[in-house]
């Protein structure tokens, strides 16, 4: 919070010089307030896009990680191949390919939102798979043996014994991915998604005030991500006290 205040102070002070024109986003003027409102209207898209994408990528990530830990060599290879291939494609390239390329292959037209979700989710799923794999591998063999010895099958062992422990351990990494995803959602602006970055771009074209507008954009992401980080930390602490009580 102290950093934020300092940052605001620096910006305000330098705003006194002639280079700055804060009027463009000054909430006390009618046009400034309208501009701010316009910029903030991208917020819900950014959040929805990232949240949907991460929900999907966690599921895909887990489904890719599990065969990666199998004793079957082909299952392991399939999982490995998926991770290596998907991880090698830059997110921006994947967004363009899904939006412009995929409809031609499938014959289905995909809206901007879902093109963004698919691209972000796919791209992130490779990282999620690696995170899950590391988390699951960190659980001692004795936990499986104890679960098997009380007659649990593989699915119940994963569901009730291994994953609850693994997920606690990978929570910081999952939080990282969520933050990363929020930032990467800005890339979806290139295909016209009306999220935060796109709104800022559009406003710059009208107002010719990139410095102020992009500064506000930086602050928007900063606040959003600080809130998410705090939420993840709160959740981590809650899980820990669960075990400690």
């Amino acid at each position, binding site marked *: 919070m102290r950093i934020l205040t300092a940052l605001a102070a620096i910006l305000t002070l330098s705003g006194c010089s002639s280079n700055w024109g804060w009027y463009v986003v000054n909430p006390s003027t009618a046009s400034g307030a309208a501009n701010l409102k316009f910029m903030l209207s991208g917020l819900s898209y950014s959040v929805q896009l990232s949240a949907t994408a991460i929900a999907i990528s966690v599921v895909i990530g887990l489904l890719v990680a599990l065969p990666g830990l199998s004793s079957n060599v082909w299952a392991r290879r399939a999982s490995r191949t998926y991770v290596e291939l998907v991880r090698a494609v830059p997110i921006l390239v994947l967004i363009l390919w899904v939006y412009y390329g995929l409809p031609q292959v499938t014959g289905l037209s995909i809206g901007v939102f879902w093109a963004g979700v698919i691209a972000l989710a796919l791209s992130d799923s490779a990282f999620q798979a690696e995170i899950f794999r590391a988390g699951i591998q960190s659980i*001692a063999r004795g936990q499986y043996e*104890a*679960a*098997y*010895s*009380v*007659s*649990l099958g593989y699915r119940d062992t994963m569901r009730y014994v291994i994953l*609850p*422990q693994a997920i606690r351990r990978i929570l910081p990494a999952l939080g990282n991915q969520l933050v990363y995803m929020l930032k990467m959602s800005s890339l979806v602006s290139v295909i016209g998604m009306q999220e935060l970055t796109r709104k800022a771009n559009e406003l710059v074209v009208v107002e010719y005030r990139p410095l102020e507008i992009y500064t506000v954009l930086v602050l928007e992401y900063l606040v959003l991500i600080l809130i998410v980080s705090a939420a993840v930390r709160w959740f981590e602490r809650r899980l820990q006290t669960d075990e400690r009580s």
Partner: protein
Amino acid sequence: MQKGESPIIRFDGVSKYFDDFQVLKGITLAVGPSERIVICGPSGSGKSTLIRCINGLEGYGAGDIFVNDVRVGSDAAGLRAVRARVGMVFQQFNLFPHLTVRENLMLGPMRGRGMSAADATRLADRYLARVRIPEQADKYPRHLSGGQQQRVAIARSLCMEPQIMLFDEPTSALDPEMISEVLEVMAELAQTGMTMIVVTHEMGFARRVADRMIFMDHGEIVEVAPPETFFTAPKSRRAQDFLQKILNH
């Protein structure tokens, strides 16, 4: 076999390799209902591997193992059926750290036996009382002493109401002052007529509880004898050497 008629566990020429190393060399053994067997031997002799084969935690190469005339093999449903009747207690307890003591006990009955939560709770509380730690039910395993954790692990296995209990060095990871509380629970269990196979170096316990002693070395069963004979007049040279080391340390 001393008690009962038909064996409850049968090993027929069981061999097992870890890569080039042969851990089990043609083991043949029959265990009768309610029999109490203690297996001892130097480390690396294959005794843990032997009992881990009974509930399929280890696979084996040649031969057959039968539990209640069901072959322990690779078929998943068959394995789960065997595991529902064979409880196991581990050296490192292996309690589920994210679950309370009571939840540790309820998981098997609910997910392995399809019991309702209410029934599983009653069952869990009954066995916690039996291992004399009913007051710890709502704690997490890490708040318990080693001896208490191992008793929880025993109760967790008993909640499956098994016919057979396997103990893999149950007191080896415990501080000395906690060993007796675990052995006591095991001795009580032996009196209920439970079939037990115990891998341990606790020779006092073996003498009191075992019907038969099995001495293993280098993947073979070297000697099988009632404890009186085994401790006073072991036949094989290897058993003599082993007892010499373990009893006079």
